[in-house]
């Protein structure tokens, strides 16, 4: 056997770390680094070929450190292997265009998806894999452990303790993996204070910190303006509440981002309460602090919410509702993406989200040609965890629908909620996902499928609900999907007789089958119809960002 370590040398990482710290010390750089000297620091402690974790999710971003790294000399720093949750900022892509980094392992790339695809085609970037968040965090502790991590916190004290504030997000997972495997932790903070409100990261895990010239960027990604919710979305929300939430008694859940699920949140104090569902559904959540959940919280529908991150403008509201949200002794929220994703995977009975395309096996994808967007957390929460062992009524009912009364396990409810056509009459239901063509053009090992069809239990469209748990053959499954695909080419090609039989069996249920009067599918049913309504519901505690204020 070839030993991976030279005889007697078992601490090469530790000694390497020491050499890096000595190079920084030789330049006169101490624990607190002035912003103009951060470039020198990075060139001193990072080595070519290093694995570097750049913190940034779709909320908080270590943007100053990212820009500074992108401005480093490619002669000094090159062939870096970036490991990061989200490729969101222009500087993230600059790293590859400028020849500083060459390899990427990540989860999500939303706004930079087009530039990323071009870099792959031009062979300026090698993608290791596209992950879901928890999967990527897991690999930080196995085979993608960073040599250096660049993180963002709200404040530091002189000793280097960090306060992350409500947006703790990915920081604990990144720091843990780096600091305890001979790596170097560098933090950007918004301010230096004498006494921190609380310590989120202890100073002896942090090697350097810098007060950035401007506060770190935070995207209000989970704010949906109720003014943009349509009557069709209200109809779909009514069907979901009556046909799924009520039937399974779904108490513990996660909602994806989008107007479809925002409509459900805004019907909890009205339609769902009228159906007698208050306290019987939606009491415990793994969820970012969606402003559209404020009316449900204020109406007493919600008991507990653990969050992946925070949401801009929700800080004071959260602090004032500490029975519902997880907060520190200082009063401010503590989020944690790794734990909330774990909660979404194992402790929730339902995930409901949306997608851009779905095929006839129920596979769904947000990949479109010419863009590599990745997955985020959806594949994790939108999957049935075979490691789950505890029962709940919703989980058992779903399991028995799929496997009969003697089923030895339950099923996570994985619901996809879509209108049959997107904007410009692009059909959501398709014979073949664009993901396959993307795989071919990008030379990927797998098509980027967000949620596998065999994990999906229900599909909600304006045409009704398809319950895939009750399908017994692949043909039934295909016709159940066609049966709610409306007037898309896939929907028009349905076998009418078979779809009618599926409807008789309750596999497909239309609004009229659920006793829903279409005249009630109206925005008036929403508990809030504008951002201003949400502010009012919060008693003035919710402070929406300027872009959402139109009064």
């Amino acid at each position, binding site marked *: 056997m070839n030993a991976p370590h030279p005889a007697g040398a078992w601490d090469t990482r530790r000694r390497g770390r020491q050499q890096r710290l000595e190079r920084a010390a030789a330049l006169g750089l101490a624990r607190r680094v002035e912003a103009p000297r951060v470039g020198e620091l990075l060139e001193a402690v990072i080595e070519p070929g290093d694995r570097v974790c750049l913190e940034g999710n779709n909320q908080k971003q270590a943007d100053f450190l990212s820009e500074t790294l992108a401005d480093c000399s490619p002669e000094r720093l090159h062939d870096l292997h970036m490991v990061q949750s989200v490729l969101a900022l222009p500087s993230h892509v600059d790293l590859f265009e400028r020849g500083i980094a060459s390899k990427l392992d990540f989860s999500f790339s939303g706004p930079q998806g087009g530039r990323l695809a071009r870099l792959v085609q031009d062979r300026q970037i090698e993608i290791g894999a596209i992950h879901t968040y928890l999967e990527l965090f897991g690999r930080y502790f196995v085979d993608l452990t960073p040599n250096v991590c660049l993180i963002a916190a709200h404040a530091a004290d002189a000793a280097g303790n960090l306060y992350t504030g409500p947006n703790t997000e990915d920081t604990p997972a990144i720091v843990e993996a780096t600091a305890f495997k001979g790596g170097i932790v560098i933090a950007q903070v918004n301010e230096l204070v004498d006494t921190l409100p609380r310590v989120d990261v202890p100073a002896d895990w942090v090697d350097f910190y810098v007060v950035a010239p401007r506060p770190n960027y935070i995207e209000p990604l989970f704010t949906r303006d109720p003014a943009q919710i349509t*009557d*069709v979305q209200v*109809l779909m929300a009514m069907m979901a509440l009556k046909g799924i939430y009520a039937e399974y008694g779904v108490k513990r859940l996660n909602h994806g981002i989008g107007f479809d699920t925002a409509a459900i949140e805004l019907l909890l104090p009205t339609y769902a309460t009228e159906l007698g569902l208050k306290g019987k559904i939606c009491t415990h959540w793994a969820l970012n602090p969606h402003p559209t959940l404020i009316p449900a919280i204020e109406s007493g529908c919600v008991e507990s919410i653990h969050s992946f991150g925070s949401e801009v403008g929700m800080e004071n509201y959260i602090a004032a509702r500490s029975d519902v949200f997880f907060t520190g002794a200082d009063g401010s929220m503590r989020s944690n993406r790794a734990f909330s994703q774990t909660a979404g995977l194992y402790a929730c009975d339902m995930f409901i989200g949306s997608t851009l395309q779905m095929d006839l096996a129920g596979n769904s994808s947000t990949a479109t040609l010419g863009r590599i967007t990745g997955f985020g957390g959806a594949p994790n929460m939108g999957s049935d965890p075979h490691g789950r062992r505890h029962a709940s009524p919703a989980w058992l009912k779903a399991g028995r629908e799929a496997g009969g009364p003697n089923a030895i396990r339950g099923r996570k409810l994985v619901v996809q909620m879509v*209108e049959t056509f997107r904007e410009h009459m692009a059909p959501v239901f398709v014979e073949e996902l664009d993901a396959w063509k993307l795989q071919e053009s990008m030379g990927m090992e797998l098509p980027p499928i967000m949620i596998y069809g065999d994990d999906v239990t229900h599909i909600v469209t*304006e045409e009704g609900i398809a319950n895939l748990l009750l399908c017994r053959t692949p043909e039934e499954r295909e016709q159940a999907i066609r049966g709610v695909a*409306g*007037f898309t080419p896939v929907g028009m090609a349905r076998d009418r007789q078979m779809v009618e039989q599926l409807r008789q069996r309750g596999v497909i249920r239309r609004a009229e089958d659920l006793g829903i*009067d*279409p005249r009630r599918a109206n925005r008036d049913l929403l508990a809030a119809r504008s951002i201003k309504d949400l502010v009012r519901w919060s008693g003035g505690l919710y402070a929406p960002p300027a872009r959402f204020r139109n009064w």
Partner: protein
Amino acid sequence: MEKLEFRFPAQPATPAAGAALCGVVGSGNLEILIRPGDEADTCVVSVKTSARGFGRIWEAVIAEFAARHAAGGTRIAINDMGATPAVVSLRLGQALGEYTGGVQ
């Protein structure tokens, strides 16, 4: 602007009102007026739409509406500003609900 005309057999509707108006003429939306027609078992629909080339989808949406609802004996006029099939189906259901007083 495109004008389309359709006639489909349907179970007779039971009107509760002389006419029903639903929706608004606005981008992505449409306005539907239901009035009594001449034949009790036929639903006659005339569509004026700003989006050209979707005749086949209109035909399918209205055929499905006539098959699923008791909408016979009606004359339906639609002014469309590029509504999706989802919006069209919902508004048709809402207009018929108003016309029949909730009996469908």
